[in-house]
Structures are given as structure tokens and as C-alpha cells.
């Protein structure tokens, strides 16, 4: 029984090209690799819903998938543009089709908004690089998404908006001082979506590339005192990525296995497949027999 996944990469073509020119792997490819790593024989189709030419699956097209995984994206969920509203409609259709959903950052935000919740610009500004001291809520500690995870952990992150109001049927699973909602389970019209504000799909290399693409912007926001400080930081992340035994660098940056050990970093993905996707597949198959 091989799960079929639809990977939805919401970036516009222009945003994808900008990241690619900085050496970053496309979000959909990071996500597909992560899913195949968690379930090697899984099949992944990829969709770019921001492309005007994209044909978005509906009803039965969506129901043919065992899980829908959404990448992050540089769009803003409360902008009233076709790229945004199309994707909110798409995630609503996925809820109605009863297909398990999972996603990072923007994806958690559109799932919440599609189900009737709200997002706003985070008054604390941009949370960039590493989300520190994310703490599971009481519900999060008991939730299957976090089976095997520490009750406090760090994660890769890059966002300016945050979930402010969750709709009925949703549960906040974690938060930190910077961002109150770091993960959420949304149940809506028969579908379930587990969304993370952070990025389990990133590693140090991808974080370095993303930072590289945004150095000037990050400098203007005060993350770097000058361009050289930004370049030094990118080099530091790349050095640690290439030499994981450099515990001196990890210690100085204040990072540990939460970020450096892929199995720890991606527990949520494996749990989504084992505790939501596969059980849903089994139920569906038995119903068809």
C-alpha cells in the first residue's frame, strides 16, 4: 500500500526563480524528498497553484490522493490576490474531500483561514532562522503529531505573519514567546490538517541559501549589522552543515539535535503519515471492499 501524495508549492514563478538563483532547492522538491525519506515508496505529484496556467484538482481529483502536503510560500494570506484566494479555495476543497493535510508556515495559515480563523502580521516582527524554545501545549503533549518529540524544542523558521484566531474544531499544539501558535490541528468539514508555523523540511544548508537570498532585506531589518556579517553567518551555517562534527559551532550558535538530527527534526512528518495518512487509507480501503 503506497501512499500517493500531492505536494503543493504555492510560490509564484518569480519567487521560485529568485530562490533558485541563490542556490536554494525548490520548496516542492524539499517537501517531496522529506516525504520519500519518511516513506520511501511514496509517490509525489507536484502542483504550482500560483501559476496562472495551473489546473487545480477538484473533488474526485483531490480525493484520489492519500495526503496533501503544502510547502511554505512568500505570499501573504490576507492579501486579496488571485494567487492567495485560489489557494484558500483549494485547501477548503481538500478539507471537504477528507484528504489528510500537512504543511509548513503559509500552509498552516491558509488552513486556519480556510476553516474560518484569522492571521495578522506578527507584532514581534520577522521570526527568522531559528524558532527558539517552542513549547508543546497540554493538548500538544497528548497529540499524535508529537509522539516521541520533546515537550520543548527549536525549529527552522522564517515568517512575518502569525495565526491569531483559530476556528472552532482547531487545537493549538505549540507556541513560543515570539509566536503564540507554532502548530495547530484543524478539523473542518470532515477533513483534518496538521499545520506547523516552522519548517521541518529545511536543513542548515537550505536555511543558509534562504538567508543568502534575503541578506539585504535581513540587514535592513537589523539581523545583520552589514552585508559581511550576513555572508559570515551564511558561511557558518554551511560550514556546520558540511561538518556536522563541529560541535563547537553548534554550541556557539545555541543549536542541537532539534535542528541537526533529521530524525528528530522530522518526527512530525513521520507521525502525520503513520497516525493520519495510513489510518485514513486503511479506513477508505475497507470501506471500498
Amino acid at each position, binding site marked *: 500500500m503506497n501512499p500517493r501524495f500531492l505536494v503543493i508549492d504555492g510560490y509564484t514563478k518569480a519567487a521560485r526563480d529568485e530562490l533558485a538563483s541563490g542556490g536554494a532547492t525548490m520548496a516542492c522538491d524539499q517537501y517531496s524528498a522529506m516525504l520519500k525519506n519518511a516513506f520511501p515508496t511514496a509517490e509525489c505529484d507536484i502542483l504550482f497553484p500560483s501559476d496562472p496556467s495551473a489546473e487545480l484538482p477538484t473533488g474526485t481529483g483531490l480525493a484520489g490522493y492519500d495526503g496533501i502536503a503544502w510547502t511554505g510560500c512568500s505570499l501573504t494570506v490576507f492579501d486579496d490576490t488571485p494567487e492567495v484566494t485560489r489557494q484558500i479555495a483549494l485547501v477548503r476543497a481538500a478539507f471537504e474531500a477528507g484528504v489528510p493535510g500537512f504543511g509548513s508556515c503559509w500552509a498552516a495559515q491558509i488552513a486556519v483561514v480556510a476553516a474560518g480563523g484569522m492571521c495578522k502580521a506578527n507584532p514581534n516582527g520577522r521570526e527568522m532562522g531559528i524558532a527558539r524554545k517552542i513549547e508543546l501545549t497540554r493538548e500538544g503533549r497528548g497529540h499524535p503529531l508529537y509522539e516521541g518529540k520533546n515537550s*520543548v524544542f527549536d525549529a527552522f523558521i522564517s515568517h512575518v505573519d502569525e495565526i491569531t484566531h483559530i476556528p472552532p474544531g482547531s487545537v493549538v499544539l505549540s507556541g513560543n514567546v515570539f509566536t503564540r501558535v507554532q502548530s495547530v490541528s484543524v478539523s473542518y468539514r470532515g477533513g483534518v490538517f496538521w499545520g506547523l508555523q516552522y519548517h521541518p523540511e529545511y536543513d542548515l544548508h537550505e536555511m543558509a541559501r534562504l538567508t543568502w537570498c534575503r541578506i539585504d532585506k535581513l540587514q535592513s531589518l537589523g539581523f545583520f549589522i552589514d552585508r559581511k556579517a550576513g555572508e559570515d553567518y551564511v558561511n557558518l551555517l554551511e560550514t556546520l552543515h558540511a561538518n556536522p562534527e563541529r560541535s563547537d559551532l553548534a554550541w556557539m550558535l545555541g543549536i542541537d539535535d532539534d535542528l541537526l538530527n533529521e530524525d528528530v527534526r522530522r518526527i512530525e512528518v513521520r507521525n502525520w503519515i503513520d497516525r493520519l495518512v495510513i489510518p485514513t487509507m486503511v479506513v477508505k480501503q475497507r470501506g471500498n471492499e
Partner: protein
Amino acid sequence: MLIAAGVSSGAEVYRDALKFLYPDVKIEIVYVADANESLPAGLELAGYDGVVLGGSGLNIPGGEDDPRVQRQIQFARNVFEAKVPFLGSCWGLQVATVAAGGVVATSWRGPEKGFARKIRLSLEGRGSLFFEGKTDVFDSPVFHYDEVTHLPSGSTILATNSHCAVQAATINHAGGTFWGVQYHPEFDLHHVAGLINYYAESLIKEGFYADIDAARQHANLLQTLHQNSDREDLSWLLGLDQDVLDPRVRYQEIGNWVKRLVMPHMIRRH
């Protein structure tokens, strides 16, 4: 208030922390490890409103026959018996633990140095007045090789992180009450930078730095951040926030100990 010190700088940082919180506090410092220092006991000890035992370069494992270690354990027993409110960091927690019948051993994960990350309060910690006003999860300066492995009965673990299971505890023994932490809420970045420079050689041997330049650079970064708390680029780079940078947040436990143990004890006595 009596500060019992293993090392002079350790006692001075504690004095600075207490003075920051309570500018008119009267403080005496006693060097408990010194053989020629006469230590207060009994009624004399009971004349203090509180006793603080800070950090030290000594180790309890292997210190069974070391008079500098044993004197301090006996001193801690006397503090418990005198029922004076008792606070300790690092070495202080370890000495109080052993004095009350618990066990301390070398940490199997190796030394924890610099900053203890992601310390989380236990359910008891969340309800403890020691942590009133503190977030459930926080970081703090830390430097230790040894850790509490067995607490005596009458004790409660209040905080934990992935390196060390006992980051904070309360110990009730012989009628006295001790509140203690494995980390160093009394240290500011200036003090951490000073320790890095002082212990650079051993930090390099232990793998915290590739070489002396890396150690000096890191100490300089911490020193720069200490003098310019608005350098958000540096605090972000080093993964440090108000838990470590803001003395009001960092000293919270010390202030709570004064407010909740020392003050009521004082008022009943006078």
C-alpha cells in the same frame, strides 16, 4: 545576608545580584573552602536572614577526603539545622543535596557550559513560588561537570533540560528549606565572558572552541553584547534573549527567594 563562597568572583556576582534587587541589603561574605576561615554555626548562623552558597571550582565526586569539600557539606548541614532560608547555585545545589542525604555524580553527558538551553519547569516548578513570574521555558548561564543524580526525601525537582535532569530543586531537611538551581542566574554576560577567557585552555580541550582565537572572539562577542544590549543582531546570532540579557528576568528566582522565604522569616524573627 551571608554569602558563602568557593571563589571570590562567584561571591561578588551574587552580592551584585542581591544589591541590584535590594539595594539596602547587608551582605557578609565567608570563604567556606579556606581552612583558616572561621565559619558561623548554631546561634550565630541563625542570626542571618538568609544564606547563599554560590559556585566553586571544587567537585564532590572524588572529594570524599578533601577537607575543602567536606567543610562545606558540614556547613550546609548547619545551615539546614539553623533553619535559615538557604539558596544555592550550581555547587551550592550539589552541596545542599549531599548535606541532606542525596547523591551527586559527574554528568554522563559531559560538561554543560555557556548557556543551559531550554530549561523547562516541571508541574511542581510551575506551581512553585521560586519561579513566580518566570516563563515555563527559559535559558540561563551555566558551567558544571557534576549533577544531582538522587535527591533526598523531602525534595522536589522543579526544572529540567535535555542535558541535566535536575536544573532546579527545593530541599526540605532538618527543619530548614533550601531552594537551588544548577545554572547561574547571578551571572551576566560580562561574567560569562570572563570565565571563557580564564578557562579558555580547558574549553578548547573539551571541544567548545577550535582554538584560542575562537574562544577570544566568542568572549568578545558576549562582552560587546553586554555593553550594547541593543545589538539585536548579536543576540539573534548567539541565540540569546531576555532570559539571559535582562537582569530582571534572569534574577527572578533570586528575587523570589528573598520575597517568599527570607522576608517572612525576617519578619517573624524581629
